[in-house]
């Protein structure tokens, strides 16, 4: 239980600083510190058990299907790292309270910091590799947020992005590696994996898993050639640099190497890859650090170098080297965090971190200078400080390491690394603090408040204590941790200041002497170095990422080229391929259902349809002809519905066809009248072939279904139509009753479409569009704009058509008809008025607003559905009854009729609104004058002309 809380506490507690910042910066910082302190208390409460050699474990299944569980484990290694994360975290929290400016959003900063802390604790305490991955990615994300904390600085944003891309990319590789590892071991629990080292190392998948895991670890720990992101991450506020990029997060990669050491280390491949990478990183990092002028950048490269040192030790694969690695992790964390914090103080107080503008600070800020120089001495490996001890152990290990038969490689390069390290340490300390006092610092440097130097001082305590009494102070912790890393008995060693005249001591002396010379000749070496081309990692990274972006753009431009025809071709080809595949894997026996005999009228209609279709394909560039042919096909389809027992469909099809044709004619009035040939002949043949295959497939499928019998749920509807829905027209009963919800949704969609049409078409065209459209108008028009015969006939038809509409509507429940069809008939009758007498004439006389009609229709349908609730029934449950009136006799009233009324109103409104809107645009375009009152008999008071409110 306690173990779960250690990582969860900071993750949950991250909300506190974000909220408490309103109560002031002190409260905010205290709350943050309290959260960390609580987690540290919990951790320490487990210390007795851990030091007694126990491994504390908890587990809770999370997603058992992928073997993901909330399992945590606390052993020596986890304890060591968790303690380091929390203790340094506390110091950084204290320091940041004074470091951050009043203008910086401190609540956000502490919230990010706690999130990071929780994620990092999760990494070091996880006992499940998938859980570890989750926390691993969380550290990358929170690190991104912290590096980019000063989001107004371009440098911070760039650095954050680079860190995220590099560590995130490594995280991807790590996912693959750890999944492979779990797969080989047969378990995703780390404690299980560690116990199966021999099985893992013997597996053929060992090498791929190892390479992927190392990619993850190397990117996180900034190993060569991925070291370049770390210096750019220094754009973060200094507390972040000290915490994430020296003491904790960059050690996550090293932690992973140490954690998996029993499972992975000790093989040839491990040694051949890990050790030279570490060695190269150590030397290259130290070399570059010597030529950096920014204090933080210098420290960043020195961190890279030390991380390389630790990696190399782990890579050697010997138990003694592992002990040295653990010891150096501890020592490095103490002195490097102290140094970063000191650099932050210098920056804060002197106003610059550039060594060329510093010097002589020892007299001005004595406390800071003393502390920083003590830490520097440790980093350089001066005796009596902790850095000396672990460096000696490193040199000792390197001294008797032979790489691929080359015995001198490791000893020499390790000495060179140490030498360069001495040189940059000297540069850091001497150029900043010693020398003459200057008078041109940007600020007046002086020692900072206690809150800022106290964390540094507290970090220096172990630096000296361990340096003087290594065995007494750190012996137990190192033994515990190293024991957990090795996973077996410890080698014979003792931590002491004096080991006698060993090869390591000779190498150390050489390093000090060489380092001093290098420091003195630094300027000359630098000048020489500038003559050679230097690979600039950031430029290469930028070039690579730009190339990727460019490639992605090109790919997008290629597959997403804006051509509808291209997309449709691709979609069609894929559908055809899927269809062919499905057909190839299906049985092909002929159907057994009895065929209907072919009749002569059917054959004639079929021939007409074939001719119309083929003609449309060949002559579609004449748009009016294509439109006429389309309506011919629509009529034949309607005839087909009549033939095959579907009177409702036939009625609907005929009326919709009329409306659609009018609509398209109105649109065509404003569009070009012909389509030019767009594609070459071969392209048209290809399209024809695609279309032909598609048609063949659909036709074949239809034939295959029609020639076979099948089962249907129709019997239920047929049986229930009369007793359940109160109507004998089963199609209508299904629409308004059984599947009323569908119909309700459908009329809503129709309403939305009509409103969209209304919104899309503004009848007042811009001048350019107007000119263009007018140029498309036919030059010769018929002499009679509103033919009297048509006007008279249309007006005489209107009441008749309305009566027919009412009739069709009322009988719809029992005989072919219903709201849809009645709505279409009425809409056509109204449209006819527009055609005959012109838009303006109708608009002046219209009493009903189309939009109101749509709204009323949907409203009535919805209310009918809701009314069912009043009777405790589900939405849209229908009811009906029989009533008797004198004269009329017994008749039936169904609530479905009311619902159908809603459908009717919506359909009328939608049709009239969309067509009227189009004709309104046409009216606006037409330059010919419209007679004010075509064919009107003079009334007593002619309606005053006013602008129509709507279409």
């Amino acid at each position, binding site marked *: 239980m306690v173990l779960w809380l250690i990582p969860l506490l900071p993750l949950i507690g991250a909300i506190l600083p974000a909220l408490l910042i309103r109560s002031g910066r002190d409260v905010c910082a205290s709350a943050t510190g309290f959260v960390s302190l609580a987690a540290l208390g919990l951790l320490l409460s487990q210390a007795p058990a851990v030091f007694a050699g126990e491994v504390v474990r908890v587990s809770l299944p999370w997603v058992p299907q992928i073997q993901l569980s909330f399992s945590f484990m606390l052993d020596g290694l986890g304890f060591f790292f968790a303690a380091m994360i929390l203790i340094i975290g506390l110091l950084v929290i204290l320091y940041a309270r004074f470091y951050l400016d009043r203008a910086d959003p401190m609540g956000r900063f502490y919230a990010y910091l706690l999130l990071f802390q929780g994620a990092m604790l999760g990494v070091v305490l996880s006992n499940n590799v998938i859980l570890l991955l989750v926390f691993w990615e969380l550290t990358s994300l929170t690190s991104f947020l912290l590096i980019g904390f000063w989001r107004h600085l371009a440098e911070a944003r760039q650095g954050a992005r680079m860190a995220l891309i590099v560590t995130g990319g490594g995280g991807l590789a790590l996912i693959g590696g750890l999944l492979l590892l779990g797969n080989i071991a047969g378990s995703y629990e780390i404690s299980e994996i560690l116990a199966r080292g021999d099985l893992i190392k013997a597996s053929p998948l060992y090498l791929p898993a190892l390479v992927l895991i190392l990619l993850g670890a190397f990117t996180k720990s900034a190993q060569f050639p991925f070291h370049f992101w770390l210096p750019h991450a220094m754009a973060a506020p200094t507390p972040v640099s000290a915490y994430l990029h020296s003491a904790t997060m960059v050690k996550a990669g090293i932690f992973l190497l140490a954690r998996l050491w029993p499972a992975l280390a000790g093989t040839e491949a491990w040694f051949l890859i890990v050790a030279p990478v570490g060695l190269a990183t150590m030397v290259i990092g130290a070399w570059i650090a010597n030529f950096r002028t920014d204090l933080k950048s210098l420290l960043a490269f020195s961190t890279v170098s030390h991380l390389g040192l630790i990696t190399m030790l782990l890579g050697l694969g010997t138990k003694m080297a592992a002990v040295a690695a653990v010891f150096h992790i501890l020592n490095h964390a103490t002195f490097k965090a102290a140094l970063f914090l000191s650099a932050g103080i210098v920056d804060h107080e002197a106003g610059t971190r550039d060594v060329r503008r510093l010097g002589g600070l020892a007299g001005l800020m004595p406390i800071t200078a003393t502390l920083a120089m003590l830490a520097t001495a440790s980093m350089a490996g001066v005796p009596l400080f902790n850095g000396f001890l672990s460096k000696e152990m490193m040199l000792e290990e390197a001294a008797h390491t032979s790489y691929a038969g080359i015995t001198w490689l490791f000893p020499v390069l390790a000495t060179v690394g140490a030498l360069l390290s001495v040189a940059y340490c000297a540069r850091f300390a001497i150029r900043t603090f010693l020398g003459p006092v200057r008078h041109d610092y940007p600020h007046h440097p002086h020692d900072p408040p206690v809150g800022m130097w106290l964390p540094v001082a507290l970090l220096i305590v172990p630096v000296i204590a361990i340096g003087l009494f290594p065995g007494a102070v750190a012996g137990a912790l190192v033994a515990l941790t190293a024991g957990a890393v090795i996973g077996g008995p410890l080698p014979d060693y003792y931590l002491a200041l004096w080991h006698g005249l060993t090869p390591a001591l000779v190498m150390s002396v050489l390093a000090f002497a060489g380092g001093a010379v290098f420091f003195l000749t630094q300027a000359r070496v630098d000048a020489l170095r500038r003559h050679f081309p230097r690979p600039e990692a950031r430029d290469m990274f930028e070039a690579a990422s730009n190339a990727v972006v460019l490639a992605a753009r090109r790919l997008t431009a290629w597959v997403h080229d*804006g051509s*509808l*025809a291209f997309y449709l071709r691709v979609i*069609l080809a894929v559908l055809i391929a899927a269809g062919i595949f499905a057909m190839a894997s299906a049985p092909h026996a002929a159907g057994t259902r009895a065929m209907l005999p072919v*009749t002569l009228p*059917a054959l004639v209609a079929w021939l007409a349809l*074939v001719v119309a*279709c*083929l003609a449309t394909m060949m002559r*579609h560039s004449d*748009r009016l002809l*294509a439109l006429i042919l*389309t309506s011919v096909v629509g009529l*034949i*389809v309607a005839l087909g519905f009549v033939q*095959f*027992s579907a*009177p*409702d*469909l036939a009625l609907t099809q005929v009326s*919709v066809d009329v409306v*659609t044709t009018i*609509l*398209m004619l109105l*649109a065509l009035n*404003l*569009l*070009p009248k012909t389509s030019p040939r*767009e594609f070459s002949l071969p392209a048209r043949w290809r399209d024809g072939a695609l*279309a032909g295959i*598609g*048609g063949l497939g*659909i*036709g*074949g499928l*239809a*034939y295959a279904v029609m020639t076979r019998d099948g089962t*249907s*749920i*129709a019997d239920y*509807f*047929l049986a229930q139509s*009369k007793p359940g829905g109160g109507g*004998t*027209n089963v*199609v209508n009963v299904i629409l308004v009753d059984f*599947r009323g919800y569908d119909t309700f949704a*459908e009329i809503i969609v*129709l309403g939305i*479409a*009509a409103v969209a049409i209304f919104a*899309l*078409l503004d009848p007042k*065209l811009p001048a*350019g*569009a107007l*000119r263009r*459209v007018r140029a498309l108008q036919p030059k010769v028009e018929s002499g009679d704009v509103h033919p009297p015969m048509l006007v008279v006939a249309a007006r005489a038809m209107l009441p008749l058509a309305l009566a027919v509409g009412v009739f069709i509507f009322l009988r719809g429940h029992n005989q*072919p008809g219903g709201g*849809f069809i009645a709505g279409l008939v009425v809409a056509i009758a109204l449209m006819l008025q527009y055609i005959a007498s012109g838009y303006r004439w109708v608009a002046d006389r219209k009493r009903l607003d189309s939009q109101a009609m749509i709204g009323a229709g949907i409203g009535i349908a919805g209310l009918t559905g809701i009314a069912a609730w009043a009777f405790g029934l589900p939405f849209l449950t229908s009811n009906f009854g029989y009533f008797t009136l004198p004269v009329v006799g017994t008749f039936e009233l169904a609530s479905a009729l009311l619902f159908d009324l809603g459908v009717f109103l919506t359909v009328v409104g939608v049709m009239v609104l969309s067509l009227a809107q189009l004709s309104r645009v046409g009216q606006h375009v037409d330059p010919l004058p419209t007679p004010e009152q075509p064919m009107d008999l003079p009334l007593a008071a002619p309606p005053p002309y006013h602008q129509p409110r709507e279409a």
Partner: protein
Amino acid sequence: MEILVASAIGLMTATGLFLILQGRSFPVIVGLTFLSYAVNAFLFAMGRLTVDLPPIITPGAAYTDPLPQALVLTAIVISFGMTALIVVLGLRGFLETGSDRTDLSLADAAEEHVPAPEGEDAGRERGGAARA
């Protein structure tokens, strides 16, 4: 009879597919209308073909399957809504840009129907074409 219906469905599908592959909005709209016919007829055919058995309840009668009919009825009306919306979209696109191409990479070479507009709104026109 089934073979006639099936071949008609196939032919209407092919016509519709061929037309939507054209590079202008009007043929695409006509093609969609053809496809609606084909799809509606196809759905209707799923109920199998019967003659003189309308699904109107009368004593002692047999009926055809009413469910595909109900589905197709709503489909016919909805396809009107869709066609109307697309027609208006195509029209609006033409009014904005002076071109009814469905191919953006070629849209810059538009304005072949009408001589390029002159005068005060020529710049606006070009802006509209680029926006498309």
